[in-house]
């Protein structure tokens, strides 16, 4: 994946570039918003990772500008500004995700994979029903079927399942699930995710004696669908 990284910190920028490159990506590092804007216009990036406070053009203005020009490359903001209003500003400017410093590299990779163009199965977005393997979700009636059998999921479990399907095969972190399903941007320190995933598993996996949602120790979960029977 070709990634543009705009980060002016002399230690964090090169460190991220090295590790993103080691992870199999082509990473161009910029410490100045003006140069980054020129590169975005000339090269075909698949994802932009942008620090909000940078010299030249700040990250927020840069994203607003490229969005106003019709460019819809996925954008992740990296920033020390972690209040809800800062997040809202970021999303309003056109960011697809928002990662507050300090963050774990695994979290960044998970989010890159989750929002990169190639990970999004466009045919599944904004439709009434989504299917994945032998699971079918009716998003309007809020009903889940597995192997044509109705599974009784509550609202949160169904939303969890929906996001697992949207990010199938990709690692989804606990922080991402808290944000997406519960709109929580802080660490509740209670086991909300573990409890709800455990309950989801008991309904979606246990009766069928298989495992669709795998735990990646210390970093999140990966949902892999079972092929249709």
């Amino acid at each position: 994946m070709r990634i543009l990284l705009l980060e002016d910190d002399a230690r964090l920028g090169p460190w991220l570039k090295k590790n993103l490159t080691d992870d199999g990506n082509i990473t161009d590092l910029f410490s100045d918003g003006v140069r980054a804007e020129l590169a975005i216009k000339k090269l075909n990036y698949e994802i932009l990772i942008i620090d909000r406070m940078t010299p030249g053009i700040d990250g927020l203005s840069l994203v607003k500008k490229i969005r106003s020009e019709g460019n819809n490359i996925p954008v992740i903001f990296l920033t020390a500004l972690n209040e809800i209003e800062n997040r809202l500003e970021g999303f309003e400017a056109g960011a697809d995700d928002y990662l507050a410093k300090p963050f774990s590299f695994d979290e960044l990779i998970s989010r890159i994979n989750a929002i990169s163009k190639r990970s999004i199965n466009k045919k599944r977005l904004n439709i009434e029903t989504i299917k994945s393997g032998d699971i079918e979700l009716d998003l309007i009636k809020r009903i889940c079927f597995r192997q044509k059998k109705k599974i009784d999921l509550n609202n949160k479990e169904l939303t969890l399942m929906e996001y697992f399907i949207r990010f199938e095969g990709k690692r989804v972190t606990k922080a991402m699930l808290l944000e997406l399903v519960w709109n929580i941007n802080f660490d509740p320190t209670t086991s909300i995710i573990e409890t709800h995933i455990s309950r989801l598993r008991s309904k979606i996996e246990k009766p069928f004696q298989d495992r669709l949602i795998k735990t990646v120790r210390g970093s999140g979960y990966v949902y892999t669908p079972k092929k249709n029977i």
Partner: protein
Amino acid sequence: MSAIRQAFILISIYSVVFIFCWVMSNFFIERKIIENIDRDLSYDLEGISLLWQSQKTLALRPSQDSYYMIIPNPQGYQGRIAEGAIFPGNIIFFPEGYHSTNLIAENGTPFKARTLIRNRDDNIYIAAKSLETQIQIRRTINEIFFFSAIFSLIFISLVIIVVARNTQIRISKIETSLNFIKSGRLKTRIKLDGDDDLVKVSNSINQTTQQLENLMGQFKNQSANIAHDLKTPLTNLRLSLEKKINTKKINQKQIRDSIHQIDEIINIFDTIIKIAKIQSGSERKKFSKVSLNEFGKEIFETYGPVIEDKGFITSINIVNGDKIKMDKDLVFILITNLIQNALKFSKKGTMIAFDFGPDKILIKDQGPGIPNSQKNKVIKPLYQINKMKEEGLGLGLAMVKAICEIHKADLIIKNNSTGLVMGIKFK
């Protein structure tokens, strides 16, 4: 500008205004007197001219202050017929009309008079009236004005000076207290008697200083506590990293533990910053009307399973009421903290119950409760009742208190027969 200087300026302004009024009063009184006299002279002159033409006499209603003279046919007859006073010799050359002149009484005393001269039928008719009575009235009025001015000026000056001195003393007290506060003596309070505007200003300053003292106290405590609380995880981290240097093989568990400890330190900072932001009021941006009915269901859907999975029994009681204006995200944090507390202090198998509505959110547990003597302490940042036994940072209830304050709501901490009831009561 000091109050005394203001008093002198006020006295000067009062004096100037008084003098102006005095001068203007004199002017208008004199004008009115002259108008009346001139009208009387005009009537008198008509009378003497008619008498002279018919009876060749000046015997017209003799009065003390009216005087007449006729100079018949001045070219042919040079005599003068006058009554009551001696008119000046050159009056024959005066133009027709009204004049202010000096006449001489029969006893030889000169006096001021108003005179009207008319030429009619080849005769010169002159009527005059003494101004002495009017002069006397004007003098009396001026004396009244003068004594009023002196008396009122002295009285008002005394009152203004006393009030200004009193105000100046009070302002000086405020100034002295503010200088004390400025120099760091935050226990200083302004003590003023009475119920005037200065007392109100002083009360506001006292309240602000009290708030400042509290915040500084909290800041000092927090700084000391932060330094203390960060030292423990930092020491653990340092020791484990030290150990890793001496270990040839990298132990994955040790690295994970180190990351966990770093996350704990970051969490302490994040929570302290969050509390500070809530307390400063900069978080007050996302208030909206929320139905406690819907909110309660949402909370129970999220936390009900968590509580059950941890081995507790849970229930929710929802009472319908009006929508409450709140920052939903902050109240979610408040509830999360109260649930964490209930989970931490209650025994497994006991009940953790939720009450939502009509104007409050309560979390009831069956734990040991909080001793009354500790109730005010547990809401202070980084305070823990029993540090040795407890997990966590001691920041949760400080956050809960800050969230209640930003909502201008009451924080409920109540021990009942079965355990502890904590929550928020909106106003």
